[in-house]
């Protein structure tokens, strides 16, 4: 009995680590594990928290990265949108100038 719980918890830990490799945060992890591995989110959450306790530094740094990712996301998103809009305007300009030429 104890063994199976131990191995189960171990498995959940393994799965969580896998998700972390994919840069997921806790919620995403719970989601993924629940969807793909039928792990109850509460279990994922508990194990996650416990792992966090045991590996504080790691998770702090991990959160930091994720946060950074999210923060710069806004910037990058803006840039992307900018570029996209530029492209579309250029296209319009080009097409209009083409028409111009044709005329």
């Amino acid at each position, binding site marked *: 009995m104890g063994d199976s719980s131990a191995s189960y918890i171990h498995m959940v830990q393994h799965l969580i680590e896998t998700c972390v490799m994919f840069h997921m945060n806790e919620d995403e992890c719970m989601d993924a594990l629940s969807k793909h591995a039928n792990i109850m*989110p509460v279990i994922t959450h508990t194990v996650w928290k416990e792992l966090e306790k045991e590996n504080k530094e790691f998770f702090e740094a991990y959160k930091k990265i994720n946060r950074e990712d999210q923060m710069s996301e806004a910037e990058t998103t803006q840039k992307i949108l900018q570029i996209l809009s530029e492209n579309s305007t250029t296209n319009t300009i080009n097409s209009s100038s083409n028409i111009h030429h044709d005329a």
Partner: protein
Amino acid sequence: MLAVSSLISTSNGREGEMESFSLDLDGFSLLDDIDFDDIFIGIGEGDVLPDLEMDSDMLAEFSLSGGEESEFNTSYSNEKVEDNERREEEDRGSGSGSGSGLTSNLGEEIVSKRHESVRVNSSPKEGHHKGRKSSKSHGKRKMKVDWTPELHRRFVQAVEQLGMDKAVPSRILELMGIDCLTRHNIASHLQKYRSHQKHLRAREAEAASWNQRRHIYGGVGGGSKRDLTSWPTPTMGFPPPTPVPPFPRPLHVWGHPAAVEKPVMPMWPKHIAHSPSAPRPPWTPPPPPPTPPSLAQPYPPYCHPQHQLVPSALTPGTPCFPPIHAPTRFPTPAVPGIPPPLAMYKVDQGIGVSSAQSHSHPPFDFHPSKESIDAAIGDVLSKPWLPLPLGLKPPALDCVMVELQRQGVPKIPPTTSHA
């Protein structure tokens, strides 16, 4: 040279006589007079492997009979002069030591059909393989061929033209059209090339599967020893005779502190275009095969240019992201291709966030894709014995159990289906 041809023509007629020699080993005392050094002069030419059929031809050229030895000595005395001193010593030692053994071997050689591929006792020959400096070009001798990259390129071209299975040395020779190459040179080179290609393919396949694994499990916890023998750069560019070291798990490449000091990267997955200082094997094959599904790529350098600007085109599942680098303070990975993919990853997330305004349910596939996550998770479920990718310190079981019970989960594993 004339001596050689005369030798051969006379030996033709003398085969009957030679046979009689073979039956009577005492008759071989004559052979003792022959300087064995000279006999093997041509055999040791650089590109000849012991197991090639040309050996018998070589021996046929040097076919012995009692009366020929003087001619031998004179015609090849030139060669001998050019030889290194130490080689002679080597040869002498081996020659005299195995003289009798040689004798009987040679006798057999003489008897055997000329075109039969018989191998001479390799021990006397080994000493002769290295550093044969015969620069004289006799038509029938095997000159040491220096397989320059240019020469090799032409060789590969010819082989490709013919197709790997159809690539016969004689045809290759024709296609290459180089005078100073003999069919035997080509044959031995072809043999090496083929085995090298086989190795490469095997390594590639292994690399592909390893890379996939790595992306699933991450390289952080791997920490395997990097056992890479750096690719030697001999003039001829052939792999070392020792068995190639097992393909090192590329886990290090992701910036394991120990590995990143020098940009040691596996040479086998040659689609890594940025291998910095590692010597390139002369057999860099023609442009790497069209990338198999990008999953196989560790760092797809071609990935980021397109993808930075067109995030929507980002193929889900493109493993263009590095695993976590901050926690252990990994230095920037040596390969230049890595940071941009991270940027790409950020972009992806950004779009997800901005449009969906929520973290957990982006409208379109997060990269990595569901499939790869699913695959990774499935892998973990099916192979519980695999090592933990991150190697995090596991929490105390008691703590977890207590906590779970507090949360209302009395039994682990839960018997009820998940909510």
